[in-house]
């Protein structure tokens, strides 16, 4: 499937076509490319404005592969097909043929339903007045009509795989040439009057050529001359035409059919219908008369329209493998008679199917402007039902690899487009490790527009065990909340990310903010941290300190004291928080009835001397004595030395009180 004929597009950018300039491009998510004029300069060239700077507009072109699926109506096709696709994956490779036919029909009914909706929507005034939208609808109808038509034929020939194909082919042709049937209904409604209708006979002929024998008979029986012998004889011929039924002995049918055929030809030759030339022409069509059929071909819309009918009257027991020759002959004939008509792609693809050239068919199917909806789902179905396995083997096509790559491409296309990612993920789930890896790359790149969407993404990641994706999303949200000054959210998402660095950073920020201003940010979030605090020692400290802060606020000084002493002992206090913590202890130390025991008071004093004093000294040597950039940024502290002395004093006083009480307590 080499295609040396690489399609080319012209952009026509003035700046880019200037001497020495060229075009450059980068990819964006969602099959988009940004193009801009480019000029290669190196570090050796002089850095000066380009000679032509300012003369041409500098443009960036955002090129997007055109897609039909921007319309909500069409998006439902994707969603429904996604469900059918999932059903097929569950069926697996060993289901019965009938089940695969059902799947195939399900896909087709999705397309048919969509076509109906499209036709309706197209007629609505808002679409009619919106030129580009109208064109989109028209395009979509063309594409999906083609998809349905081809799929239907494919289903008949390669999925149902019946021994005889003519009856199904007739259904197929009738469905896709509905005009004749519409007009036949009109004639039936007109009853007798119909006989005078101008196109009476031409309609009857096209009905015959579509194999609609019963309808033709019904119309003929309403003719004013229906009682005349010619009409009666015609009715008899049509009525007695043998129709092959499943289970009938082929040989017997053949002889019956031959007899009927010869008999009819004989009747025509005897001039039984000479009085009714038009009726005779109809009957000549029934006998497969070349002159009449040639005339019919000249009237036909599409080359495949009357092929099934022709087969019905000339080769009613045509088998799939015989169809190839019959179709090729028919095509040549059609071409000879209609040399002016060029073959449309769809006709070519229909012939490829009849000609058993699946390889070319698939290649052409990929060119359908449906972002590979048709080819992907069809190939997946081919792979599952296994009918064509030997064909692909003989043609050296690795069907599983082809299917895999199609599904992978289709899935990643959906997943990287903005509104469709939820559908894409199911396709990528079928692509083994490669699909998993693609999900891992694409999932975190879906822009997080709301927390609800983020939660959805996180759940999808969690179902697939993609912890790194989950973490990444949480971290992004944490940072985003932090930048937006929503610190409670920032802490919450940081905790959910379970990333020590991020959690520590946010907790640090909250603690520093507290020691600087005395305001505790996001108390609700901190109160709810609970058991999750053990992610980071800093978070443990924050939670515990908050607990202390709450005790203190609710005047539960005994519990507060106990917790404070624990915190001082815990060795998780960050350097910058020592001043805050020790200052917090002062009111408790100065309390009239001692809250802190002698032993603990000694410990506090110890901390003042071993933790706080060295920090102060370090800062003094680093920044000078009266610099504000010290760890002493606590809002309550201005004079460092004074506060240090006050602390020592408070300790001494509390120690004295505590010692007296502890040592004079009556022995219990």
């Amino acid at each position, binding site marked *: 499937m080499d*295609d040396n*004929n*690489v399609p*080319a*597009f*012209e*952009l*026509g*950018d003035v700046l*880019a*076509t200037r001497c020495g300039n*060229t*075009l*450059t*491009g980068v*990819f*964006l*998510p969602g099959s*988009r490319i940004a*193009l801009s*004029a*480019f000029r290669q*300069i190196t*570090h050796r060239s002089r*850095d000066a*404005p*380009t000679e032509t*700077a300012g003369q041409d507009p*500098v*443009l*960036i*072109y*955002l*090129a997007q*592969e*055109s897609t039909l699926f921007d319309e909500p109506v069409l998006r439902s096709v994707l969603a429904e097909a996604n469900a059918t696709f999932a059903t097929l994956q569950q069926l697996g490779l060993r289901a019965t043929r009938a089940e695969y036919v059902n799947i195939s029909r399900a896909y087709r009914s999705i397309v048919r339903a969509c076509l109906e909706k499209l036709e309706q929507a197209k007629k609505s005034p808002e679409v009619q007045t919106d030129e580009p939208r109208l*064109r989109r609808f*028209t395009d979509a109808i063309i594409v999906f009509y*083609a998809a349905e038509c081809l799929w239907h034929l494919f289903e008949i020939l390669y999925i149902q795989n019946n021994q005889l194909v003519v009856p199904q082919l007739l259904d197929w042709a009738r469905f896709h040439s509905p005009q004749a049937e519409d007009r036949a209904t009109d004639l039936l409604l007109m009853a007798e009057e119909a006989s005078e209708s101008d196109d009476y006979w031409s309609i009857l002929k096209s009905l015959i050529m579509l194999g609609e024998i019963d309808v033709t008979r019904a119309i003929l029986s309403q003719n004013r001359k229906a009682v005349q012998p010619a009409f009666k004889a015609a009715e008899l011929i049509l009525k007695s035409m043998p129709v092959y039924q499943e289970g009938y002995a082929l040989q017997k049918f053949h002889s019956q059919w031959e007899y009927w055929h010869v008999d009819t030809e004989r009747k025509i030759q005897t001039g039984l219908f000479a009085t009714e030339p038009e009726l005779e022409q109809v009957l000549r069509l029934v006998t497969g008369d070349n002159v009449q059929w040639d005339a019919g071909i000249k009237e036909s819309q599409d080359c495949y329209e009357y092929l099934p009918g022709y087969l019905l009257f000339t080769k009613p027991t045509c088998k799939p493998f015989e169809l190839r020759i019959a179709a090729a002959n028919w095509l040549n004939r059609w071409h000879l008679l209609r040399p002016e008509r060029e073959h*449309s*792609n769809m006709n070519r693809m229909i012939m490829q199917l009849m000609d058993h050239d699946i390889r070319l068919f698939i290649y052409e199917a*990929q060119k359908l402007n449906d*972002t590979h909806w048709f080819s992907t789902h069809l190939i997946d179905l081919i792979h599952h039902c296994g009918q064509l396995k030997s064909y692909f083997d003989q043609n050296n096509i*690795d069907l599983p*690899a*082809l299917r895999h790559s199609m599904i992978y491409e289709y899935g*990643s*296309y959906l997943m990287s487009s903005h509104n469709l990612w939820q559908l894409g993920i199911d396709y990528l789930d079928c692509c083994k490790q490669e699909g*998993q*890896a693609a999900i*891992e*790359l*694409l999932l975190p790149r879906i*822009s997080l527009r709301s927390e609800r969407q983020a939660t959805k993404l996180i759940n999808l990641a969690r179902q697939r065990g993609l912890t790194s994706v989950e973490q990444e999303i949480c*971290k992004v949200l944490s*940072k*985003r909340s*932090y930048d937006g000054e929503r610190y409670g959210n920032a802490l919450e998402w940081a905790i959910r990310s379970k990333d020590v660095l*991020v959690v520590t950073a946010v907790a*640090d920020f909250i603690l520093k903010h507290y020691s600087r201003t005395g305001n505790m940010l996001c108390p609700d979030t901190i109160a709810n941290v609970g058991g999750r605090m053990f992610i980071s020692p800093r978070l443990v400290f924050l939670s515990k300190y908050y607990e202390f802060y709450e005790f203190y606020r609710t005047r539960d000084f005994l519990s507060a004291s106990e917790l404070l002493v624990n915190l001082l002992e815990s060795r998780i206090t960050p350097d910058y928080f020592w001043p805050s913590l020790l200052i917090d202890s002062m009111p408790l130390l100065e309390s009239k009835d001692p809250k802190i025991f002698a032993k603990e008071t000694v410990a506090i004093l110890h901390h003042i001397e071993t933790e706080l004093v060295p920090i102060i000294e370090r800062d003094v040597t680093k920044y000078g004595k009266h610099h504000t950039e010290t760890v002493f940024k606590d809002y309550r502290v201005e004079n460092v030395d004074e506060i240090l002395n006050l602390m020592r004093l408070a300790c001494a006083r509390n120690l004295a009180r505590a010692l007296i009480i502890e040592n004079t307590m009556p022995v219990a």
Partner: protein
Amino acid sequence: MFDVEPIIADHKDVIHDVVFDYYGRRMATCSSDQTVKIWDEDGQGKWSVTSSWKAHSGSIWRVSWAHPEFGQVVATCSFDRTASVWEEVIGEKVSATNAPTRRWVRRTTLVDSRTSVTDVEFAPKYLGLLLATASADGIIRIYEAPDIMNLSQWPVQHEIANKLPLSCLSWNTSTYMVTQLLAAGSDEAATPTGKVFLFAYSENARKCVKIETVNDITDPVTDVAFAPNAGRTFHMLAVASKDLYIVNLRGVTDATGISKLDIQTIKFSEHNCPVWRVCWNMLATMLISTGDDGCVRLWRMNYNRQWRCAAVLKAEGSGPTYEPAPPTPTLATTASATAKFYKKGTIGNQVPWH
């Protein structure tokens, strides 16, 4: 078939780099006019400039976005021998009803280079907030922000000197086999030696060292790009040189237990002229190459993993003027020779390109 939407960039001179953020919703552009512009896409897909500032006193070569978990951060590098890190911050609230204004603040200027800084790129996020620069005097510097909440500190972590001037660099985002893998290219034309170098962190030396030179590519190299890795067991590096190259790197362990990289170079000569830039799509199923022939080529990997040119986008043409759409074909018309870009939405030819 493409729908094309032109955006007036409003730069006074040629744009050197167009880079999209992680989600593809923001765009940074830099130009010879010494300014950087940040663009945002609104809900309707329209792009508009939200910030624009003079960032350097020389042409700005490249711009790079940091991962969003580090905030809204870009780095730029310039002919003026510096690289800078910029962060978007929320400004003062003007009124209660309006959204707070956002502006970009320079967090640091990295002045270590004595020559033009030719490329700058943030490292993959698993390494933390790291930034690599390449300069014309052949030195790669790797900076690290130790405190992710305070981006004013960027101490140099590694400095690797090379004999040849460097024009470009690229981080490998995958950790498969080798960690902290970095490629750099040189546009030196005088010597017939390999022009693409690979660097990685060496446990023994405890620093970043050069581990390989791609000897197959001896022509000047103007761009290198590691492909994103979606489950591959090897690394792909696209190289823009006299031709387009795709270099496959496989980690192999020899009999003595020493693991090294096996390098396989594939050349694509379709441009028939020097290639300036290369860019991968998100899953590395497609590649864009910019040639001196005024064309952008789109390459895609087919189902048996061969790279094929899928489409050519030409700079020339009659201009993006609106022309009425030709009558709708019954089906996709096959790839006829040339179709034009129209301003918005036209039936052209179908490219099986995604």
